[in-house]
């Protein structure tokens, strides 16, 4: 059941059926009510969630106690992944993910992932390769955005700082 869920997610399509089963074995099906917190900003690095139905909000606390909505993700038509950075790294979650409706998800616990890594299981290494590529692309794109903004500011052109800000926060990796 769970591996069928993973099979629907583009994020996992690079895994063989057998590898998806291996990951699914250590995973669990979880549900959240609207308003429930799935990942809390500042909490220690945790699980990866494959959202298979429902909607979530991604929010970031800004200095001064304000909140900013970074994204609304809808898993109704296509499953989506949150928490992938926490699976790989040790830093605390950088944003809060909260259910905006009833949400169904597959949770891949960090402990499962780390156990698979220490056992040398290819599925876990392939998953980390996939996460690393996602992070590398996002970092490259952010660097380019910042260079572009700096050059634009230097040229004294009509710099649209709000557009710059919006581009910086696209596709935040929690």
């Amino acid at each position, binding site marked *: 059941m769970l591996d069928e869920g993973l099979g629907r997610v583009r994020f996992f399509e690079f895994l063989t059926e057998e590898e998806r089963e291996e990951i699914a074995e250590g995973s669990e099906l979880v549900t959240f009510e609207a308003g429930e917190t799935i990942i809390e900003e500042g909490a220690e690095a945790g699980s990866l969630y494959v959202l298979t139905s429902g909607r979530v909000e991604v929010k970031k606390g*800004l200095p001064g106690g304000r909140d900013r909505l970074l994204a609304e993700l809808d898993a109704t038509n296509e499953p989506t992944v949150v928490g992938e950075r926490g699976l790989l*790294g040790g*830093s605390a979650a950088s944003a809060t993910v909260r259910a905006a409706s009833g949400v169904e998800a597959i949770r891949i616990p960090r402990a499962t992932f780390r156990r698979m890594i220490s056992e040398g299981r290819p599925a876990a290494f392939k998953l980390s390769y996939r996460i690393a590529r996602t992070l590398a*692309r996002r970092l490259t794109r952010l*660097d380019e955005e910042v260079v572009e903004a700096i*050059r634009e*500011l230097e040229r004294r052109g009509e*710099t649209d700082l709000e557009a710059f800000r919006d581009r910086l926060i696209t596709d935040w990796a929690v």
Partner: protein
Amino acid sequence: MQETPSLRGIPFFRHLDAEERAELEELLEPASFEAGETIFEEGGPEGRLYVIISGSVEVHKSVLPGRRQHLATVAAPTVVGEMGLLTEPRAAASVEATTRIEAYGIDRDRFLELLDADSPAACKVIYEIGRTLSERMAKTDRSVAEIIARLEDNRGTADIDVFRDRLIQEWSF
């Protein structure tokens, strides 16, 4: 030292056992650079990564035309060019030898072939890179949050020069 290439003692490869190291050591091509020589040119090809075993390098990026931003000075043992394994093989910054450098090159395509064949050695190296990137991402997320807060605090009245200079100084490329 160059006659028997070894990755032993290089932090980047510390999780590999002897057999796995041997698999990668077959790919090593000895390379050396003189002080002042360019190892990677910003925007240029990044078709291999280098394991630097002696000497030190400087990393620069042309953020503004005519102005090279110094990003880092890194001493051996270290690895440069590893990002090319995960993205387009195009250098995001220039890397220049500040002293004479002894290094081993690893061809990107040959490494990626190993990875495609599920080589445990290649997988472990990528996992290490991923963990580094994950920490860098966390730091970048904090920078982005600060930029957003700053822009929203100074909407319309921002001192553009100050904002630009802080971006240059504080962004960790």
